[in-house]
């Protein structure tokens, strides 16, 4: 960009904030997908609760393929850790974004 200052002065704070928030949401969604025993699982609180309630030897992955879970406790723990980590990161980055009051700081320039 020839004149970054000029670009930034025109750039809309609300636009940038909304888009940056969406990027954070996408990042959170991606970080809640884990690979386990060859399957791909989307981790949500409902998924974890379902695992705890059903305790089957099998679980359906994101493509609805059954995957054998040899150690259910280890799988639940891994799912919980992945979700916690993703949510903590999302929360921290979301809060940091809220504290930024201009476009320049939103995009770390």
């Amino acid at each position, binding site marked *: *960009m020839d004149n*970054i200052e*000029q*670009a*930034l002065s*025109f*750039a*809309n704070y609300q*636009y*940038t904030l909304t*888009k*940056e928030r*969406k*990027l954070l949401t*996408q*990042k959170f*969604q*991606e*970080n809640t*997908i*884990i*690979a386990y*025993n*060859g*399957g*791909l699982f*989307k981790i949500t609180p409902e998924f974890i609760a379902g695992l705890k309630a059903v305790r089957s030897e099998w679980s359906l992955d*994101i*493509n609805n*393929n059954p*995957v054998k879970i040899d150690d259910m406790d280890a799988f639940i723990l891994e799912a919980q850790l992945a979700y916690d980590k993703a949510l903590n990161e999302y929360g921290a980055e979301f809060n940091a974004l809220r504290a930024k009051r201009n*476009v320049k700081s*939103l*995009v*770390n*320039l």
Partner: protein
Amino acid sequence: MSQGVLLFAHSSEQVNYGILACWMSSRIKKHLQKPVAVVMDQYTYDGLMQSSIIPKKYFDHIIINEVGDLQFRRLGDEMVPFTNFDRTDAYDLTPFDETLVLDVDIVLQSNRLNCVWDSNYDMLISDDSIDIFERDNSEFQHLKEHGIKFRWATEFYFKKTPVAENFFKLCKSAKEDYNWRSVLYGFSNWPLRNDFLWSIAAHDCNVEIPKIPRKLRYSIDRDEIIELRENEIIIGTQTERGPKVLNVAGQDIHVMNKYELMILSAIEIGVLL
């Protein structure tokens, strides 16, 4: 089972894909910690040597493959030559049992793609994408309106299995019949696009090919890279409502402005262009 990332790099006068591949390899080693193989032609290899780059420093496997014909495509306001004819040979060329093929213009900023390894699936491909500025991306949804679903050849994973082998046979078959396929599916027959071959093969193979579990983020060739840092990229664009700037941090993004990416990636790996 060996696992690794396969890159394709065929430089032209305008874009030094060799340098992009070296930079990409350094990012792969950092984020994915996997061996990297590169397919390049002698022109690209010699170009690296002339830039005082030792390819063996970046790549675990170097596969020299001459591809011949050049095509032209629009990059910004210019038509630039490129070649992409050997991506359909990925199955035959890869030295790995499990291969992740990545374009060299993906800015790798996370280890998310490590979720593909040891998969139960024979192949994983990308079909869902999002423009970071959320412009109309219908051209990346279907080959034409109400046509077959668009699949990206930008990133995909495969194992050496009959299913994956069949997929690549279908890609080659679609390449041979490209003119006819373009009439059948309603897209331009020039230049040849691997994305279209992948879309046709996925459509033809009669099994649902699972997708890499994420949206492929991208910015288009007119967008400008303002800064490329270790774990974030700042991209600007002109819209009807003025210039806009976004920071993509800790997420991978497919950056189509190869000119600027080439310059910034050369700086990152300490190479003078």
